[in-house]
């Protein structure tokens, strides 16, 4: 129930979330002349990268897995004196400086969460907000809604058979903050994503025993190849316009030469080609496997009071299980059909950003790539701001652009061949995706 009468914010745009993606959206919309109200449920910027936030997945040892040049905002580079892979606290200070530098804070309402965003028919939106955790609700009308609420905060529900019988502790990866939680424990890490690998490595350094359970074999890319960050070498292959097949072969050769045959270490062989899954970047996992500090094991079959049985019949006896099984996107404030969600909760958006049937609804940052997220969020934000501006300035041309965009083949910007898993719903190629965004941005240029 609205406690105050509806306030019309006329041409203002509502941005939801003040993490990296939300900040990029606020900045771009302001640059394009829009008034902006950004709502942030926490009391500070930084989103997932702010370890003080209760939804933040970072732990004390988190570092970037894409290198600085492929991770920074293109118009606000990170200090070149920073290491190739900065630490999470550096990323947070970077986002704080970005917000201060461009004067974004004055447009952000902190400690305010969005309860609902509802279309009112003419392309405008009623957005209901309240103080985080309760309090009076307030509804305001906006010209557009840009959701930047992140997609790495709501852990994918995991069902472990016999979990109720297990006497040890089960810890979701999002609740893992510090290696002290692992010290002296016998730890089973479930999940072969980057988070699962990072935690397995930290466990290897601190825990008494470590088992790492994965469902399939992966390509473990080292963080450095030929003395350079691996993603920069990958970008070089793109620069030389090598076709995908050749890059897959090169990737295969490089991994073979640097990491070697992982099955020798007891790891499963990859069941897919390179570039068909989200890249795993971890130089230390295999090192610790090779030192006997991590024992790779199969998928979990069921839990008992003091033991876990794996699908290959092996039994292990951990007293702590860390589940790093990924996250699912959640948009509690939007009706599912607004984002064309399917029954699994997978949104269907043009370029993973534009709602197909609601031209004034966009999502920023709902992508994963073989590079960093901030450059993608930046160019998405430029595209969204330009799109909203063109809609006002020249509706006829905006319609023509929309028509043209609807013919853009999905394979040109999305990875269509990936391992079928919710982890790859939003997987794109950094370079192909940016090319598509660049084209769209040019089309949206004011005449």
């Amino acid at each position, binding site marked *: 129930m609205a406690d105050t009468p509806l306030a019309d914010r006329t041409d203002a745009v509502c941005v939801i979330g003040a993490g990296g993606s939300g900040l990029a959206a606020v900045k771009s919309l302001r*640059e394009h002349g829009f008034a902006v109200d950004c709502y942030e449920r926490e009391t500070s910027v930084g989103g997932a990268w702010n370890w003080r936030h209760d939804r933040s997945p970072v732990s004390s040892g988190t570092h970037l897995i894409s290198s*600085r*040049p*492929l991770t920074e905002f*293109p*118009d*606000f*580079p990170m*200090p*070149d*004196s920073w290491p190739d892979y900065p630490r999470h606290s550096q990323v947070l200070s970077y986002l704080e*400086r970005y917000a*201060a*530098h*461009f*004067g974004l804070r004055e447009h952000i309402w902190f400690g305010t969460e969005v309860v609902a965003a509802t279309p009112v028919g003419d392309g405008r939106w009623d957005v209901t907000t309240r103080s985080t955790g309760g309090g009076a609700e307030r509804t305001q009308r906006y010209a557009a809604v840009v959701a930047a609420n992140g997609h790495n905060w709501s852990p994918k529900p995991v069902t472990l058979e016999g979990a109720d019988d297990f006497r040890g502790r089960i810890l979701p990866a999002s609740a893992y903050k510090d290696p002290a939680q692992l010290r002296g424990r016998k730890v089973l890490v479930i999940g072969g994503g980057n988070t699962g690998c990072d935690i397995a490595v930290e466990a290897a350094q601190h825990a008494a025993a470590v088992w790492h359970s994965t469902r399939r074999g992966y390509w473990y890319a080292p963080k450095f190849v030929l003395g350079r960050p691996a*993603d*920069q070498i990958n*970008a*070089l292959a*793109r*620069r030389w316009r090598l076709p995908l097949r050749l890059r897959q072969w090169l990737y295969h050769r490089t991994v073979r030469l640097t990491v070697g045959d992982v099955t020798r270490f007891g790891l499963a062989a990859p069941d897919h080609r390179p570039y068909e899954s989200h890249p795993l970047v971890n130089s230390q996992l295999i090192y610790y496997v090779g030192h006997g500090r991590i024992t790779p094991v199969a998928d979990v079959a069921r839990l008992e009071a003091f033991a876990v049985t794996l699908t290959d019949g092996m039994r292990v006896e951990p007293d702590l299980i860390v589940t790093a099984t990924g996250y699912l996107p959640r948009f509690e404030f939007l009706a599912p059909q607004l984002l064309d969600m399917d029954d699994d909760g997978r949104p269907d958006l043009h370029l993973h950003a534009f709602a197909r049937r609601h031209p004034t609804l966009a999502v920023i940052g709902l992508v994963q790539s073989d*590079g960093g997220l901030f*450059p993608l969020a930046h*160019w998405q934000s*430029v595209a969204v701001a330009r799109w909203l501006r063109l809609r006002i300035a020249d509706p006829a041309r905006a319609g023509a652009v929309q028509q043209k965009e609807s013919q853009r083949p999905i394979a040109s910007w999305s990875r269509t061949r990936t391992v079928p898993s919710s982890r790859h719903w939003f997987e794109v190629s950094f*370079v192909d995706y*940016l*090319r598509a*965004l*660049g084209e769209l*941005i*040019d089309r949206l*240029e004011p005449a």
Partner: protein
Amino acid sequence: MNPIRFDDWTAPVPAVRREVLSVLPEEETDRPPVLFVPGLGHGAWAFAEHWLAHAAERGYPAHSVSPRDRGDLRAQVHDVVQVAVSLPRQVVLVGHGAGARVVARVLARYPARAAVLAAPLLDGRAALGAALRANPAGTLPALVGGRLRVNRRQLFGPGMPAERADAYLGRLVHPGARMQRQLAGRDASPAPVGDPPVLVVGSPDDRVVPRASLDRAAVRHGGAPLLFPGMGHDLMLDTGWTEPLDAILDWLDKELGG
């Protein structure tokens, strides 16, 4: 708009220690920082002589950055962007001579609060022609990769005491053959991002940047150049240095106030 930045992704400019000179206003103001970018052969010192202190007196936190030793255009653009984003607020960029060429490239990448191109060396060919006429002996070696030398009359107006002029000339360094070569062409930087207001200032008596080049630069940014007759190329060192700076700051006051 091209989001593909292979240069930065595959061969990032190596980090160096940068020389930045700063003069801050005595009391904190809400005015944006101004970053001055020196031209060919000059360093941050060229602005520290007069302009930094005067800008700070008028309430603008004033900084200037020296180009890295033998850095090319790309490295200089990188350095200026690095310094700009290290400052607490969106900066106003003021580039002089070849520094304006750097600023023009920076604008295509960093959304400045505003920008000033002072005696901008955007058209290398025209500048080369002017230099050959004014000082053939100093210019010819540059054509074959040698160091470009300038004389008193190229940089300063007739009112400049010879002693001081020579002292300044003595501080100029060789920018490197690569940078000289890159400047010989015409500026082809893409449109600025973030649509900043841009002002062009110069002198009709500049013997480095011809009047026609000033007009072209101004037209590109939608205006006419502000002219200071009687001054040489080095607006920030010549005897009348207060006039162009006050005009720039007046313009800024107006642009930022509105």
